[in-house]
């Protein structure tokens, strides 16, 4: 279960007050809402990148409200991918594993698995410069998934992609969802994207998060 209980987040003059949200383990939730409503802020608070003023954040039964981002075990894919310009795609996939001091053979096996899952085997020795938007998002997804996070947070990962690439990414995200057992919170503006991917559809309003029916 990913849960936020009465969470208040302050960011300058903007405040999200007493927000509560529950996503059962293994579900793919999509959160929609107007621009500036605080969707990204919620993801940042779950990651630990933004402090909460009050309330509790629990991930898979563990209270992580005051834990550092490194200790939360959350995979995070930002909107612009934010790839590391000096590292190759292979180094991106191995990044979290190197930090965790995995042995070399285990890292190589996991990198190969990720490359196959995300169809980026041919890009492994390339750097981010020159990757297309879809390729960059697949690398960012692989970088987040490699450490087998219990929770995956996706911040509008498909918003900058063309229609064809977006369809490919839908298929990829559905395949990832089938193969990797984890709880996903995906933020988007697109209702069709939400309908395609979500088994739990949420909408952020000024008074909190509402559950929407899946068909509409």
């Amino acid at each position, binding site marked *: 279960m990913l849960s936020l209980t009465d969470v208040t987040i302050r960011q300058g003059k903007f405040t999200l007050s007493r927000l509560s949200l529950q996503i059962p383990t293994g579900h793919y939730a999509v959160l929609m809402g107007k621009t500036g409503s605080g969707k990204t802020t919620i993801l940042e608070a779950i*990651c*630990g*990148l933004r402090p909460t003023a009050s309330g509790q954040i629990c991930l898979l039964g563990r209270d992580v409200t005051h834990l*550092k*981002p*490194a200790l*939360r075990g*959350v*995979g*995070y894919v*930002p909107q*612009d991918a*934010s*790839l*590391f*310009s*000096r*590292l190759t795609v292979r180094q991106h996939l191995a*990044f*979290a594993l190197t*930090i*965790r001091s995995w042995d070399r053979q285990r890292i190589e096996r996991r990198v190969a698995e990720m490359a196959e899952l995300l169809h980026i085997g041919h890009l492994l020795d390339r750097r981010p*410069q020159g990757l297309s938007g879809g390729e960059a998002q697949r690398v*960012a997804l692989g*970088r*987040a998934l490699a*450490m087998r996070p219990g929770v995956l947070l996706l911040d509008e990962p498909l918003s900058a992609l063309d229609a064809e690439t977006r369809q490919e990414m839908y298929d990829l995200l559905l395949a990832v969802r089938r193969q990797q057992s984890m709880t996903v919170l995906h933020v988007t503006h697109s209702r069709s994207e939400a309908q395609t991917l979500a088994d739990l559809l949420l909408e952020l309003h000024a008074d909190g998060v509402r559950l929407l029916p899946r068909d509409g």
Partner: protein
Amino acid sequence: MPRPHDALFLAGLIGMLGLYVLLIVSLLGALACFTSGKDLATALASEEIRYAFRLSMISCTLSALLSLWVAIPAGYLLSRFQFPGRGLIDALLDVPIVLPPLVIGLALLILFQTRLGRAVDQIVPVTFAVPSVVLAQFSVACAFAVRTMRVTFDQINPRSEQVAMTLGCSRAQAFWMVVFPEARRGILTAATLSWARSLGEFGPILVFSGATRMRTEVLPTTVYLELSVGKIEAAAAVSLIMVVAALAILILARLFGLRGTGLI
């Protein structure tokens, strides 16, 4: 095909750039034409000038390294963190840039006449000794390096290091593994800028280190000493040596900095 007023605009831009480049080339040309091969050979054969050249190269390199050592953490701190007094510190960092260099030298001299300064001087002789040259150069050059590093870190999206932290990095690991490699060109720019600034430093060295031959004499001091005894040819030859040394370092740094970027 540019429209007529676009062509005029472009001509204006090219004209302004061209005028300034012409001025620089004329200055260098004048210096080169004034200096004969014999003057240059005489300068290079002089033991005093060779000492000044060596001291300049060593002190500028030390000053640049010290400047980077301070500027990288200082620039990162100012770029990424909010803390009380940040605005004041930011303004103070501009003081060595706006103050006349001579005043920096005078302030250093007075500082080393205080009880604390004299105590330091007794442990490591600074005033009118070689360390004073490095300190005088560093005092000014470091401010330029801090400014450069601050802008460099401002231009690196903090999202990258945030992602690194979600992947398991501490803030320090995120800095060393993600931010530092991305700041490589900025670091190189700060290094060359502080090195070049140190090479040209004269005022604070004259006041704080003196102009003692074979002791605290750097190349700008040599130019001053040669001019003061009317040896304009020797002064021009030393100036030309400084120009060549500075150009060599700047070109090498640029080549090194652009390697791997696909621009060269």
